């Protein structure tokens, strides 16, 4: 009997701690499938963030380094500069990457650091129970914007891909979504391409993945997926922001 679907080797066979309906699990799987298909697990070093995915060093089967909050691109830089032949990726949420780690991501991108960044944008701080993130949409209710995000008080959400695409350093930047099967397949291709860009030595690659946080959005898993389509994508349009003509 032919095996048509199995767990990726790059994903450890352990229970995950994520909430029901959270799309971290899907994003993890896409990264692991890409690692498997490119046969790079043995030479890959991943960097875990601070946030809900802080301990994904337990989930990925490659060597893993846990970084302090927001510093994963700097940690990845240190690793990659020591091991230029290896594959180095970070996995970061929007609080980690777009708030406390803004300097690190911008400068890693500006240097064209040959690393891959998997950026999970769910417009909220998940682990610390639903605070406003730099990516929180206007009007969105969070535990620290209980009356909705008001631009006069809280400023405006940051579009990371568009911002980084103004730099000359990045080789490849794409925003994808996990809200349905079709988009998950596109997300998979983007993640795989990002790793291929690194393997080809082309420089900095980042894939922003629009994700859900049912627990802190106060929505059930299905409604959460619908929210991505209805509210997130209009503000965070999907597409390639750098390297659209890049062949790898």
């Amino acid at each position: 009997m032919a095996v048509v679907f199995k767990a990726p080797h790059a994903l450890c066979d352990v229970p995950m701690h994520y909430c029901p309906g959270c799309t971290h699990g899907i994003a993890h799987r896409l990264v692991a499938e890409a690692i498997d298909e490119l046969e790079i697990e043995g030479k890959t070093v991943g960097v875990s963030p601070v946030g809900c995915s802080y301990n994904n060093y337990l989930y990925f089967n490659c060597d893993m380094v846990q970084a302090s909050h927001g510093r994963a691109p700097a940690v990845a830089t240190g690793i990659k500069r020591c091991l230029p032949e290896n594959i180095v990726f970070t996995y970061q949420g929007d609080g980690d990457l777009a708030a406390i780690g803004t300097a690190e991501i911008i400068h890693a991108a500006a240097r064209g650091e040959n690393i891959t960044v998997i950026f999970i944008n769910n417009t909220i701080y998940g682990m610390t129970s639903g605070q406003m993130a730099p990516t929180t949409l206007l009007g969105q209710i969070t535990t620290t914007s209980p009356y909705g995000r008001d631009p006069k008080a809280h400023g405006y959400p940051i579009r990371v891909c568009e911002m980084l695409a103004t730099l000359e350093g990045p080789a490849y930047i794409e925003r994808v979504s996990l809200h349905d099967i079709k988009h998950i397949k596109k997300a998979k291709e983007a993640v795989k391409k990002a790793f291929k860009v690194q393997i080809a030595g082309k420089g900095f690659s980042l894939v922003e993945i629009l994700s859900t946080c049912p627990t802190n959005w106060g929505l059930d898993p299905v409604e959460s997926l619908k929210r991505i389509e209805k509210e997130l994508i209009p503000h965070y349009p999907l597409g390639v922001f750098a390297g659209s003509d890049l062949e790898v």
Partner: protein
Amino acid sequence: MGQKLLMKGNEVIAEAAIRAGCRHYFGYPITPQTEIAHYMAKAMPKVGGVFLQAESEVSAINMVYGAASTGKRVMTSSSSPGISLKMEGISYAAGAQLPAVIVNIMRGGPGLGGIQPSQSDYFQATKGGGHGDYHMVVLAPSSVQELYELTVEAFNIADRYRILTMILGDGVLGQMMEVVNFRDEEKIETYDKSWATCGHNNEREHNIITSIHIDPVILEQWNNDLQKKYRLIYEKEQRYELYNCENADIILVAYGSVARICKGVIKEAKEQGINIGLVRPITLWPFPVDAFEKVIDIPSAFLTVEMSAGQMVEDVRLTVNGKKPVYFTGRMGGMIPTVNDIMSKIYEIKNELKI
């Protein structure tokens, strides 16, 4: 044989690191240590190494964290305000048991302070600085020659114990030029680094470098292991110099460039018929309590001299433990104590104790 050169202290630190096998340096400019970065920027490409000017001290120390995770020898350097910024990364690297060398060429504080020499980061270096129960090995050179020798040794110590080693100098040492005798070959100790995250190559289980252990039972055990390591270092790595202590009426305690001034004081005092000794801690952590055990019965008093409001003097008092009076004199804010300053204090003590 060897090589005899006239060099600036900061440049010698950089050269020593390269001779010790360090091929990765991450830094950010700050006076009075920037010559280390200048030297690295020129020298690293010639030896196939990496010099990277980070966007901040915070990023530089996290690049060190990443580089150290791979098992490679790595260094960063800064001066006081920059070291404060590195403290987060230092705590994480200490927690994750990563070996690396950190140089602090101290300047006056607090805040932006000034750019002149100081020793006011002693507490930060030896008592924590970052959060959590951790220590770095802290080495305090007192000459350009010692900057060379202790920088090489710092890498060996870091690898031996999987620990951060700090070179704690000051603006005087960093900026001064002296003759340095380089050896033809360095004694580079090699240790097992099977813990490193450098790709498992499908030959072993995945390695994990982390400072987080969410289960308190495991975190306590992790801390117990750290403390066990610190006790071992405390037993094995204390270094110090005893100078003219044999018949001393008063023994000075000073490190770094201040210890040099104290040797001038000893000479001056001798001419005035006073016998003064010096305990010069070379390791500030572990503090060299052994040195005090050797000399405790000799003097009438100890006089600690620092370029601070009195930081190391607390460890001197803890060590002397009331057996002898412990005095302090110091200058702050980038001012350097003179021989006359210290001689005045010696006369004050002599009058008070009637010696």
